[in-house]
């Protein structure tokens, strides 16, 4: 690891000031991606601005049907939240299956979506739930937020403060983990909103990161059933191929995981 300067702000304003004081500063939350990358000398921020001690980023709340999860909430906190278990158990299940216990007690929802790893779990939930990403400067619909591999609509200095979404009528997440990394080789989040509309988001499989699958959404809108998901043709054309799985294999997994998610919802 290269030498870096560590900062521990206690407010968003302080964090922004620290970050803007240097061209090479980076925010760090759980650090589950950034710190290993730095250890491998693949990243060399001059300054690390730690967001883990800012009260404004904490907390889970459910008001009427609107769910709000503070960006600094760890995966372990999400997985164990009674409010979320009542409002959207699918997201508790998702969080409970990220990484291992160490990761779940360090990693945060804000860090995960800001990093937008193409095999991370949370981005699929945000897309399928039609979530809003709330930053210190703006509110960004999930559909506009995830823009590519490790790329988001966040601008320099933006801090994810929270995510919000409407409690779904039904939702579930099904993941096939990469045997080596245990990240999602393919993960599918299905959600049926209170108004009956269906959104299906896929992580791990897309060549360009997380995406919604129109074919699955149409089929499940017409018939919310595992069989309907199983009948959809998934095009391998835009999917990822690597040593762990071909695009064709991932296309199969998209369908199978969608089917299993619907069955579990």
């Amino acid at each position, binding site marked *: *690891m*290269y*030498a870096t300067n560590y900062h521990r702000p206690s407010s968003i304003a302080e964090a922004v000031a620290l970050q803007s004081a240097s061209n090479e500063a980076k925010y760090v939350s759980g650090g589950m991606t950034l710190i290993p990358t730095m250890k*491998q*000398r693949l990243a060399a921020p001059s300054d690390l601005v730690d967001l883990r001690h800012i009260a404004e980023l904490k907390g889970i709340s459910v008001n009427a049907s609107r769910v709000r999860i503070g960006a600094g909430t760890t995966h372990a906190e999400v997985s164990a939240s009674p409010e979320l278990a009542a409002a959207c158990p699918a997201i508790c299940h998702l969080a409970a299956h990220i990484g291992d216990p160490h990761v779940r007690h360090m990693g945060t929802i804000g860090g995960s979506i800001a990093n937008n790893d193409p095999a991370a779990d949370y981005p699929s939930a945000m897309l399928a739930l039609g979530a809003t990403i709330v930053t210190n400067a703006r509110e960004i619909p999930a559909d506009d937020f995830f823009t590519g591999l490790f790329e988001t609509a966040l601008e320099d200095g933006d801090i994810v403060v929270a995510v919000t979404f409407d409690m779904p009528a039904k939702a579930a997440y099904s993941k*096939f983990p990469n*045997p*080596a*990394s245990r990240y999602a080789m393919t993960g599918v989040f299905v959600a049926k909103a209170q108004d009956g509309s269906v959104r299906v988001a896929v992580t791990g499989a897309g060549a360009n990161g997380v995406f919604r699958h129109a074919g699955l959404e149409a089929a499940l809108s017409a018939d919310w059933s595992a069989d309907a998901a199983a009948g959809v043709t998934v095009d391998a054309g835009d999917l990822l191929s690597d*040593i*762990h*799985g*071909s695009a064709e*294999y991932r296309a*199969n*997994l998209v369908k*199978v995981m969608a089917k299993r998610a619907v069955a579990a919802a």
Partner: protein
Amino acid sequence: MGVEGIGARVARKEDKRFLMGQGRYTDDMSVPGMRYAAFVRSPHAHAKIRSIDTSAAKDMPGVIAVLTGREMLDDGIGNLICGWMIHSKDGSPMKMGAWRPIAHETVRYVGDAVAVVVADSMGEARDAAEAVLVDYEVLPAVTDAVRALEAGQPQLHPEAPGNLIFDWQLGDSDATDAAIAAAAHVTEMRIVNNRLAPNPMEPRAALGIYDSAEDHYTCYTTSQNPHVARLVMSAFYNVAPENKLRVIAPDVGGGFGSKIFIYPEEIVCLWASKRAGVPVKWTSDRTEAFLTDAHGRDHVSTVKMAFDADNRITALKVDTIANFGAYMSLFSSSVPTYLYATLLSGQYAIPAIHANVRAVYTNTAAVDAYRGAGRPEATYLLERTVETAARELGVSPAELRRINFIRAFPHQTPVIMNYDAGDYEASLEAAMAAADWNGFPARKAEAASRGMKRGIGMSCYIEACGIAPSAAVGSLGAGVGLWESAEVRVNAVGTIEVLTGSHSHGQGHETTFAQLVAERFGVPIDSVSIVHGDTDKVQMGMGTYGSRSGAVGMSAIVKALDKVEAKAKKIAAHLMEADESDIVIENGALKVAGTDKSVPWFQMALAAYTAHNLPSGMEPGLKEGAFYDPSNFTFPAGCYIAEVEVDPETGKTTIVQFVAADDFGNIINPMIVEGQVHGGIAQGIGQALLEGVHYDPETGQLLTASYMDYTMPRADDLPSFKVSHQVTPCPGNPLGIKGCGEAGAIGSPPALINAITDAIGNNDLTMPATPQKVWAAALAAGN
């Protein structure tokens, strides 16, 4: 047996310090003035070095020295060598290319060292390493051994035209061909044995300390055989003469073969310590380990197995291409030859066998022994082929094996080995009973009702351990003898130190070897200390690999104990005025049989050292040494059965049952033996289902350079193992033991692949059987 003697499940003495974080590994060593080394490594798989500019690096903070291969050459440091001579079938010696510890002209794999930086801190050393400017002329690379033999491929070494190191054969080609031509049935297969990275928990490390006052070197290193390291560094690399070089392998966190070999880094640390005038320590990081630790396996073979009308195997013909990587590692040449082809008879009476093996250079890390070393490759090839033949012949896999089992011993195979003892049917029966083989169809039907494909597969393995009779291996090309040494020192108060040339890096020698002494003298194992791993303490030894520490290392201890016992009895007889032949040793005392006369063990020991009242002419003291050279290999064997469920939708395999029935001969500590079997099976499951080294075939970049891409077995990948032992004592050594360290890794892969192919109804499947591959194979079979 006593509670601490042979056969007792004694908890490992060494575990307290390991569990409390008090182990002392090479990286824990710190000496005054010590500095840190970082290597500059080639980012290219194949390139000419045009120039190396170290000037910027030398100006970096904390830098003491930046050294290159040219300076190493100037100082007369020799090439790394392979210590086992193989001759091709045309009589020519193997074609070994030069391996410089630091490359100065050509780099041949990603990770090849091109310079070393010594600096005040590890961080400063790494910073400066990045500032070394190397101008490369990138050359085309080849990583696949089959391709590397083709015309027009990149050439690695001028000494080895066509990248061919040797083209070797064993057995009778004509007789084998004739038997195949006359066969009632021939099963033909192409078998790939996947390349593995060894991944010991402790990465390699070295600390070189040069003492200018004495012109003496000390090397702390992660070695399975520190004496061999000293011998080779002294005799071949010209680092220092043996009397000026002390090698210490302290606690070592696993080796699996990869720490047998001498690597560039320990040579460089010693040399750099003199050059830079400071002790120099290097510790590999995990990606460096993936890049530079010697890999294992990587064979591509074709096989023909011939049967007569009674389903007896009449011949076996094997053609193997073995990937050696960019350089010939220390024992690389022995692995696909005398540790492989000699085991191709398996547990079966096969009249004619012929094996042809071509060893090939490629732009990849060196390949050498990895847990099992040649024997897993032989077993996988044989047991996949036998299982396939059973399917083709419509015979049950157990029945086909039974028809062909060797049942009379000793048995001379057509491929050198002379099996001394065994009962293969006993292990087969035990395994089938433990697995409830006959209940499988009902379990398969139940699984089918859940949409799961259930399969069962077996493997009957044999291995040659207790490596090895020195004269025999010498005649086959080994550069060293493979005996072992021991010294037993009884202290004046009766406590005992056993010095052994074996080296423990996870095997539990401190416990097992002490049990041997406790059994013999009736003393508590806490009064016995095992000393190993230091060339200043133990005079000479050949180290630990090839499941040899029990059969060879403990046999040497037995020989030394025999001498100690004889002298102790003489002393006791003298003290009690009894006849030496009437003395027996029981519960820590020397007794006159049939009387109540006895002398406690400690009193006898004290008498040996006071020398006030010894038999006339006897030398004082009680210390005896012995060298033991085995008369034959030992032949552990057994039967493994795997039962799996495949999810046809995802291709994910779940191991629902795994049975191991092993014959290791007599067992000293069943708990430690079971642990060895568990670990071996875990590694075999890793090879069969999870692990595989991938290089980009065009660029030679290592794609599996971290645990993000290289799949190590995790606890939830493994079932509980049903382990049992059948015992036919080994007639070749005094303890009747055969060795257990590698069996799990040898026997398990074919059982697993046989089970998966049974489940999906498609025999065309290579290791590792990843979900993707199993899904595709199941799909191709119409599932």
